[in-house]
């Protein structure tokens, strides 16, 4: 019996872009300045799902919650090999904190029916909270194995995984279904398949269509990415978005980067020699 696997994916601002001044002068985020990418950790989760499919047989569904442009990470999931992709998008989801996000994701997962594994990255590279995975597991009343580095054994009722813990590593076993958060050390994500890029590069979610364009034509060619809103997943608008979020951003203060606080050393022999003379004079090596 093949396994049913759901992979949770987030689109995040590109890591390399963080130093390009993401804030506008008024202190708000300049999203236009930040290219958005597939959260790297979620790519490890998708790779783990596809590896399980290769070894045991499985169907892999990728889900993301975000604005229409988040469909890009779903296309990339399909390029890597996901069987199905669903975009959760709705203005009512905007401003969700981790709890509200976990409600939307878990409610969407419930619509998919029975599943064996839910996989996601250990954390998103932007917020780095690592909270949404465990919060989804709690909403779905299933067990979790966090910080997993390898799936050791998997059968129809249980799985065992090596996971990172404070003291080192442990081999932990859980019944299915279970939610697994995946460490970057787990694997190297496979490259996009050129064949699948050619086949699916024109796939779009309805929210991405030009006004007046027909989703039916795309659907006929198997290129329509599924898109669900709050009504489709059956979640009350007051439980998601800002109104469903118990946390609020009170304020954001730019950090005064002490640009002149450090002494600049020229990257040449002269500069470095002077640096060491100073360190030796300060007894740093004694």
């Amino acid at each position, binding site marked *: 019996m093949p396994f049913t696997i759901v992979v949770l994916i987030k689109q995040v601002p590109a890591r390399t872009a*963080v*130093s390009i001044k*993401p*804030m506008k002068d008024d202190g708000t*985020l300049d999203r236009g300045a930040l290219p958005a990418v597939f959260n790297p950790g979620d790519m490890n989760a998708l790779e783990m799902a596809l590896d399980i499919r290769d070894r045991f047989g499985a169907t892999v569904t990728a889900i993301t919650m975000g604005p229409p442009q988040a469909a890009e990470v779903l296309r990339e999931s399909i390029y890597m090999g996901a069987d199905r992709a669903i975009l959760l998008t709705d203005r009512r989801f905007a401003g969700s904190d*981790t709890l509200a996000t*976990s409600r939307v994701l878990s409610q969407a997962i419930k619509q998919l029916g029975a599943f064996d594994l839910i996989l996601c990255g250990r954390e998103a590279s*932007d917020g*780095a*909270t*690592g*909270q949404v*995975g*465990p919060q*989804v*597991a*709690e*909403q779905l009343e299933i*067990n*979790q194995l*966090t*910080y997993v580095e390898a799936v050791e054994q998997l059968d129809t009722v249980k799985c065992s995984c090596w996971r*990172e*813990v*404070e003291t*080192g*590593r*442990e*081999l*932990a*076993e859980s*019944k299915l279904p279970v939610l697994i958060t995946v460490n*970057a050390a787990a694997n190297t994500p496979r490259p996009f398949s050129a064949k699948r890029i050619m086949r699916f590069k024109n796939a779009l979610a309805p929210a991405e269509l030009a006004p007046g364009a027909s989703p039916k034509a795309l659907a006929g060619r198997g290129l329509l990415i599924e898109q669900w809103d709050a009504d489709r997943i059956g979640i009350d608008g007051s439980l998601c978005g800002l109104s469903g979020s*118990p*946390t*609020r*951003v*009170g*304020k*954001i203060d*730019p*950090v005064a*980067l002490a*640009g002149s606080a*450090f*002494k*600049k*050393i*020229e*990257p*040449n*022999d002269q500069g*470095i*020699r002077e*640096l*060491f*003379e100073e*360190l*030796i004079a300060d007894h740093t*090596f004694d």
Partner: protein
Amino acid sequence: MPIILLTDGTGMENSAAEVWVYLQHQGRDMLEPSLEVLGKACELAGSLKVSVAGILAGDKVDVLAEKALLYGAQKVYVLQSRHLETYSSAIYTKAFCKLIRSKQPAIFLAAATLQGRDLAPRIASALKAGLTANCTDLKIGSCLDQNTGQEYKKILLQLRPAWGGTSIATIINPEARPQMATVCPGSMKMPQPVRASRGEIIHIPPDVQAEDIKTTVLQREPASRRMDLKAAGIIVAGGAGMGTKENFDLLRRLATALGGQVAATRAAVAAGFIGPEYQIGQTGASVRPRLYIACGISGAFQHLAGIEQPGTIIAVNTDPAAPIFSVAQYGIVGDARDVVPKLINAYRQLGH
């Protein structure tokens, strides 16, 4: 001797609005990050004029409870059960949620260790409470909710780096209780223990059974060598910016030349440049060297959290805007692959 009380866990005896701290332990000792959080919790409870309580779960943990009292807890609630002897997500969540529902603390804090980050979000999800991850500071104060215009007083201000460390966000939980946060290890001062305490240890029988344990640990592999890093006076650390394993090996040469120890960020470990036992940061070792040379490290707060009481920091990075420069005393804007051999040469030429 502390007073030891037994309750049925349903009472509301003078416990409303307390500040609680999850006390993580392993082996026979409490984790340092939990004690750091306890130190901060004492300050918060002081400004709210309420009690600070530690929450311990496990079997025969009274010695640890007494230790928590010496480190500032006024109460320690002990969830005593052999089923709680080792940490497990589901059963701990169940036991903690019941205790929180019955006693309704104002604030619940945990260290942002792997275990803290496994447990706290499950509790928050079950209780519909707001949770802020990896806080680097906590205060009691007033805050305006910009959406509603309402001002909240005597609320927990949860400070954490945002947008790659270029900003500090203040997060609040206006309505939901408890106000929950995990705290970045190393970001709070370690409290000093007192010689004698007058606090209470309160045993609360948790309503848990063996079936509540959903995870079975089949095997454990201890990590090694982390102590070497902690004791090292000179550390040469590399990040993802080193690019390749071969470049990373340059750092070993520099460390050897300086009589120091090589170390790495999580990103460098994840990239396979070096083993996880060399990792410094929130989920790795904490270090306190005299000299820290950071090569190809951007300076994410998760990494900086691992540097306690830094001595001198030298940052080498091609990106002059990298946050690592904001904590460095000396900055070299350049490619570590060129700079590191120059460092080795200069040190040798100066007769060391």
